[in-house]
């Protein structure tokens, strides 16, 4: 079994979160390595969303600590998390449909000269950077002035990912990037994720429902169920049956088949 030599970029230790009497997360440990795709799997309500919201600074954990580069950190806001290099690409992608690709790429972080907010944008430079950054992860947009609303779902994902990386994300959280896409678009997104992985220095947390997608690209797995980790390991240490069983929240497929058979 080939163990990764590198140190984890992010370590989660005993992360717990309570919303009033409801225990959303109950002591979650997770190690995230650079240059790897870490699949975070689990059923609806398993606590995946709560976990990534804690990582991206939206929620604060009730207990436990987040360690980035060997240093414990506290995120009071999404801004703190993004300053620490955590970039989250949510399902809505935070893109504006009526605006052009390069205006979206630099939205809120424009390159300009002169006194803000009246500084003149360097539109040429912004177009070129947008184009280059998207080519790096595999999409050649012919026209950076094209409105985002005219792009396909896969292209939009790529734009959001390229933007997060360009603005310094070392840990990229992708929240179900393949849901709500067609088959071919899903493959495009998986290719994009592979290319980001190939950059080598970026850790990717890939949240998904889809067993096949996770098998195609993940190096490491963490399975959540009812707020706890019920299994984790590298691609080599888990076989297909384990993955299927853990995705179903620990239920054995054979048991399920039996239960179904009884009806």
């Amino acid at each position: 079994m080939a163990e990764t030599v590198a140190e984890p970029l992010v370590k989660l230790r005993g992360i717990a979160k309570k919303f009033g009497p409801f225990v959303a997360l109950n002591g979650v440990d997770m190690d995230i390595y650079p240059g790897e795709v870490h699949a975070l799997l689990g059923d609806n309500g398993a606590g995946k969303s709560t976990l990534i919201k804690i990582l991206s600074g939206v929620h604060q954990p009730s207990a436990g600590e987040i360690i980035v580069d060997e240093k414990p950190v506290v995120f009071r806001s999404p801004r703190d998390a993004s300053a620490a290099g955590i970039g989250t690409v949510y399902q809505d992608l935070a893109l504006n449909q009526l605006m052009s690709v390069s205006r979206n790429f630099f939205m809120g972080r424009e390159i300009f000269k002169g006194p803000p907010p009246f500084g003149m944008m360097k539109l040429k430079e912004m177009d070129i950077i947008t184009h280059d950054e998207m080519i790096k992860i595999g999409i050649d947009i012919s026209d950076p002035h094209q409105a985002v609303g005219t792009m396909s779902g896969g292209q939009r994902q790529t734009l959001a990912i390229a933007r997060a990386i360009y603005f310094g994300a070392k840990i990229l959280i992708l929240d179900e990037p393949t849901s709500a896409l067609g088959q071919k678009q899903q493959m495009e997104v998986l290719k994009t994720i592979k290319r980001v992985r190939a950059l080598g220095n970026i850790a990717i947390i890939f949240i998904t429902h889809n067993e096949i997608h996770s098998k195609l690209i993940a190096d490491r797995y963490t399975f959540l169920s009812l707020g706890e980790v019920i299994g984790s390991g590298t691609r080599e240490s888990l076989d297909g049956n384990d993955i299927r069983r853990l995705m179903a929240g620990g239920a054995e497929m054979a048991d399920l088949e039996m239960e179904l058979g009884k009806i």
Partner: protein
Amino acid sequence: MQAERKESDRQVSQGAFRKFIRRPEIGAFSGMVVILLFLAIVAGDVVFNPLGIKNNLSIISQLGIIAIGACLLMIAGEFDLSIGSMIGFAGMSMAMMLKWGLPFGLGEASPFMAFTLTLCMTLFIGWIIGNIVVRSGLSSFIVTLAFLFILRGLTEVSFREFNEGSTQISGLPDFKETDFFAYLFGGETFKWAFTLLYEMGYNLNRLGNQWVIGLDAKVAWWICIAIITYIVLSRTQLGNWIYATGDNKESARANGVPVNQVKIGLFMFTAFCATVFAACQVFDTNTADAAKGNLKELEAIAAAVVGGTVMTGGFGSIVGVIFGAVIFGLVQNSVFYISWIDGSYYRVFLGTVLLIAAFANENIRKRITGGI
């Protein structure tokens, strides 16, 4: 084997002409051309003589000033229905200071002081409106509708209080003759063009002297505001923020755009436009009336829509609004020159144009957001 087709190949690149006719302003531009041609045919001698040009541009530019304010705010996703009442309020405030001096007995008011103090007040009111809208999350339609009533009421009350029950002030001194600052708003501009016309023999009155001296100063204000806002909207960081705010507020905020400040700033900008409108009127005519600016907010919004601004925000252009203001101003003013048309048909016509424009804008928006 067939060459591999990529996704980006589906975005067909278009020639210059196709790109030109797909611009958002093209509808307003063609409408303007049609109206100009129509007027040239049926009433060219009155509409396009020097006096006609002066009068038309006067109406067009005063509408144009507030339409630009309304347009920027609409791009950011909000409305301002208080523009008209703000015009009345600002006019009243300036005229009262000019007539009775500064508040709290601070002595005579120069045109500069009257304008500056009034601008401070209107910007403050714009700031309050903006804050109420962004903090309460109420629709700007309702908040500014409330201020439409509040400001108009305050204007009338203040007038009656100081002016022996009258809601008009007339017979102010003719400041534009003696004061440069007043001349900036009430004076004349582009005199050289009319002198040139006179020398070429086109600008003569019955006695053979020069007929029209120049255009109203508000034309120059309109042009300046249009150029500045054009640059701000299309080239600056703030312009990107304005589009982002109106398109999708949440994603703009997630990317660090100060959405609330953008909106508050634009409510203050519409207040600024209304104040400039009022100053041009006060210093040009030396009068003020509590009813000034009535319904102007709706005309401003209509001109912005005719100019291609999308009602739901995120899309629009200054060039389009310029065309929109020309269409509105021309029709409003010129139909009265045509003897065989009942002047009130202009409202019917404008209503129809507005509806067509709104359909066209929605179509553009759907074409973009519908995507593939």
